[in-house]
């Protein structure tokens, strides 16, 4: 049956695919962030290693899944990064651009994979640009950002790697080691003249080195040594210890007069060389330590051992005058990270399972409400009964437990806002480049937690506000210089908790909003009257009105038809609000306030005919009892006068197609709801009081119904629909205009 085939295919791929996608997306994020840091700070071995590892694991995973285009790109990227960490090429703007383009392309490919599509995007262009960079190596004219520490080491010209004539498994080992970043060394040992039993010396040397690493090959072989007249021998060694350590160890063997150790280059017989320094070793250790830490089977003891080893090269680095600061920073960084990893215990949980748990807790809250009601009813009936009292006491305790449980469960869904923030440094970088401005994005409060539901939807509005700050807020470098400000503009993104809300601030140190201009535009567009008295804040907030755009030229950044009104609307939809403060010449700050969760809201229950609807309390302004005779129909719309203003009304009974009641009462309830600066009165039959409700989705099929935002389940188990105030108001406004 074809349906079964579908199912099988889904399971087959799906299970691994999900892990793959999660992991790859994480690696890509890491790569992207790392590249930006690389651009800022120049070559830093720890960072380059991190990048290399991300590219490497991405390549590995994609290879397993058979996504060749991704493998091709990450492979080239890995090569490039490898050259970089060997100091064969410098970090250049061009390189960062290309690598960032690679991350973008891979991201796009991953999203094709996610949608179960074939990867149709090309990769050859990027691969060939990366290859150009590699083949250009150092000779090519590049905009060097900063020298990579260690790349200026003098190369010893007299070292020619020996051809050990390795067999297949041996060269595979070497290649592997190269890929993993282990140290591979050619150890040349010179024996004292007339040494007897040369072969024994070779065996001893091999044994000593085996204690520190792996000896891949000895040349000449034991037999040849025994027979011949060689003055020494050479060993090919995989080793993670510092070169000096190996050397010391070997020199302890008698009759070994000299030991020379060179890193053995990638590709046998190649002429490329890597300078051997303590830094190289440190780098190798970095890699090993991180690998040890990510391999669960290896005991933490090994990690500690590896870490203690690390202090050796770092002490040596201190002796060198060059690059002390950056090097020791790298080392401590690595250690700090390592320790952090071992302490934080996290598990990944499918969001579906978590939602189920939350669902259940929601149900329990509802059931508890019923129990409380039963308790109260019983009390009304049997005032002094002891059992009733115990029941009510138990109910109170249960209530407390439920609150704790609910809070704990909701915390499970809390995600640090940093996950949203992390995509903006790239955005700002690209925008700044495009506009020719110099802008730094400062992130603060990334650890501030908020509900997953909010995190998922906050990205776009934030992006528009940041775009706006970059495009309209920060001035060009010339203007800034003229104003006596540093050429580098700063956009700050900050987040913190404020009671039950999260506040997110987007501030720039730009020119501030041109209030006069805004006022004039608003007047010319008829948004405000010419003589209307407005505070500075009111004027600033005019930019949130629909159809307002002060940009003289429509740029590709903020003039994409998405005005500030859309941003405001999106935030209002989330139950949030946005405010502006601006100071001439000093900058503008947008403040967003959002509820911490979108899963539970306070709602006002209203009755219309025989149906009950929930109105989100956050949009309720007030409730009125209105005499029917006070309702006037203007055009086709009923209106009522409220404190001198006309308030448009809609009848939910008509709107939702309910049968008209048989006998109309002389008075009706009106729930005044506001959305942005618009207000609307909903005519309802009864008010049923307010209640905390858990928002449930109506599913795909019913998701886009006008006027309905979702559903909830009441204490009696019945489903009640939650009104979408935004769309109701929108609807009325459109009707009024047409």
């Amino acid at each position: 049956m074809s349906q079964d085939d579908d199912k099988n295919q889904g399971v087959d791929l799906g299970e691994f695919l999900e892990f793959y996608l999660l992991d790859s997306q994480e690696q890509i994020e890491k790569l992207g962030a790392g590249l930006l840091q690389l651009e800022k700070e120049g070559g830093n071995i720890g960072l380059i290693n991190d990048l290399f590892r991300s590219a490497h694991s991405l390549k590995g995973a994609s290879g397993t899944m058979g996504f060749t285009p991704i493998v091709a790109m990450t492979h080239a990227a890995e090569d490039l990064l490898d050259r970089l960490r060997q100091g064969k090429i410098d970090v250049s703007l061009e390189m960062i651009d290309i690598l960032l383009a690679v991350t973008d392309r891979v991201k796009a490919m991953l999203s094709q994979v996610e949608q179960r599509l074939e990867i149709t995007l090309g990769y050859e262009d990027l691969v060939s640009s990366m290859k150009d960079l590699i083949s250009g190596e150092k000779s090519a004219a590049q905009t060097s950002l900063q020298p990579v520490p260690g790349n200026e080491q003098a190369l010893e010209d007299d070292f020619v790697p020996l051809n050990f004539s390795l067999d297949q498994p041996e060269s595979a080992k070497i290649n592997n080691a190269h890929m993993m970043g282990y140290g591979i060394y050619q150890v040349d040992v010179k024996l004292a003249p007339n040494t007897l039993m040369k072969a024994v010396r070779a065996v001893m040397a091999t044994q000593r080195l085996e204690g520190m690493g792996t000896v891949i090959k000895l040349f000449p072989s034991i037999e040849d040594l025994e027979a011949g007249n060689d003055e020494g021998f050479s060993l090919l060694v995989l080793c993670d210890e510092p070169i000096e350590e190996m050397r010391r160890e070997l020199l302890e063997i008698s009759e070994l007069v000299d030991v020379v150790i060179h890193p053995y280059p990638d590709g046998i017989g190649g002429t490329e060389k890597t300078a051997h320094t303590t830094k190289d070793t440190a780098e190798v250790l970095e890699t090993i330590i991180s690998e040890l830490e990510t391999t669960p089977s290896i005991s933490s003891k090994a990690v500690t051992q590896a870490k203690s080893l690390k202090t050796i090269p770092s002490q040596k680095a201190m002796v060198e005058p060059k690059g002390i600061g950056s090097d020791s920073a790298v080392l401590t960084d690595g250690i700090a990270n390592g320790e952090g990893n071992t302490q934080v215990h996290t598990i990944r949980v499918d969001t579906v399972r978590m939602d189920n748990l939350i669902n259940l807790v929601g149900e329990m809250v509802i059931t508890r409400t019923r129990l409380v009601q039963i308790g109260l009813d019983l009390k009304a009936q049997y005032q002094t009964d002891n059992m009733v009292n115990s029941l009510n006491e138990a109910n109170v305790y249960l209530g407390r437990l439920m609150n704790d449980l609910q809070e704990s469960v909701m915390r499970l869904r809390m995600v640090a806002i940093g996950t949203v923030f992390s995509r903006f440094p790239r955005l700002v970088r690209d925008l700044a480049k495009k506009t020719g401005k110099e802008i730094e994005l400062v992130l603060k409060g990334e650890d501030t937690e908020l509900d997953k539901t909010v995190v998922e939807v906050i990205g776009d509005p934030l992006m528009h506000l940041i775009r706006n700050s970059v495009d309209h807020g920060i001035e060009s470098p010339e203007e800034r210089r003229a104003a006596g400000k540093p050429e580098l503009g700063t956009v700050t993104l900050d987040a913190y908790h404020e009671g039950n809300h999260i506040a997110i601030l987007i501030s720039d140190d730009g020119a501030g909003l041109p209030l006069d201009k805004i006022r004039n535009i608003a007047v010319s567009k008829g948004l405000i009257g010419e003589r209307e008295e407005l505070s500075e804040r009111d004027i600033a907030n005019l930019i949130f009105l629909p159809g307002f755009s002060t940009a003289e030229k429509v740029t590709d950044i903020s003039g994409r038809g998405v005005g500030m009104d859309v941003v405001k609307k999106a935030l209002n939809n989330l139950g949030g609000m946005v405010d502006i403060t601006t100071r001439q010449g000093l900058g503008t700050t947008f403040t967003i306030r959002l509820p911490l969760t979108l899963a539970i809201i306070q709602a006002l229950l209203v009755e219309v005919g025989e149906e009950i609807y929930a109105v989100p309390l956050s949009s309720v302004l007030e409730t009125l009892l209105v005499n029917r005779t006070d309702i006037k129909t203007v055009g086709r719309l009923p209106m009522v006068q409220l404190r001198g203003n006309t308030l448009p009304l809609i009848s939910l009974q008509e709107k939702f197609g309910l049968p008209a009641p048989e006998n109309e009462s002389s008075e009706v309830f009106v729930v005044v709801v506001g959305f942005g600066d618009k207000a609307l009165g909903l005519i309802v039959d009864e008010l049923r009081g307010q209640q905390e409700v858990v928002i449930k989705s109506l599913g795909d099929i019913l998701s886009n119904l006008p006027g309905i935002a979702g559903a909830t389940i009441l204490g009696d188990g019945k489903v009640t629909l939650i009104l979408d105030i935004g769309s109701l108001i929108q609807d009325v406004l459109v009707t009024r205009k047409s």
Partner: protein
Amino acid sequence: MAEEQLVTFNLGSEEFGVDIMRVQEIIRIPPITRVPKAPSYVEGVINLRGNVIPVVSLRNRFGMTRVEETDLSRIVVLQVQSKVFGIRVDAVTEVLRIDSEAIEPPPQVALSMDSQFIRGVGKIGERLLILLDLDNIMGGETGHELST
């Protein structure tokens, strides 16, 4: 020999069948909340142990007249791919096995009902079972997701 196991139910005088693997459970009719502006075949939503799921009126889907709820009325809760929804039926009759070869494609002319919801017609002796095509029942949009 390939066999299919079906849950059969009545709608007026017709007998229908759905693949048992798609049936999650069969429940009595709980209070149904009407959803304004929803497609006409959606009768409303119900609370299924904390989940809100839509209920499709098969009578509406097949252009039959509405009937009052009886003691035999049931909602058959189905899972089609990842979507869960209920279909309201007049009565659930039995679970039976049918030989795949006894299923014929829907006849082009004879059926008075919309054939896009019908996968085929099964013959068991004198009985004719109309086999539902579940992918199209719910808006006809549920079939695309995994097809690539």
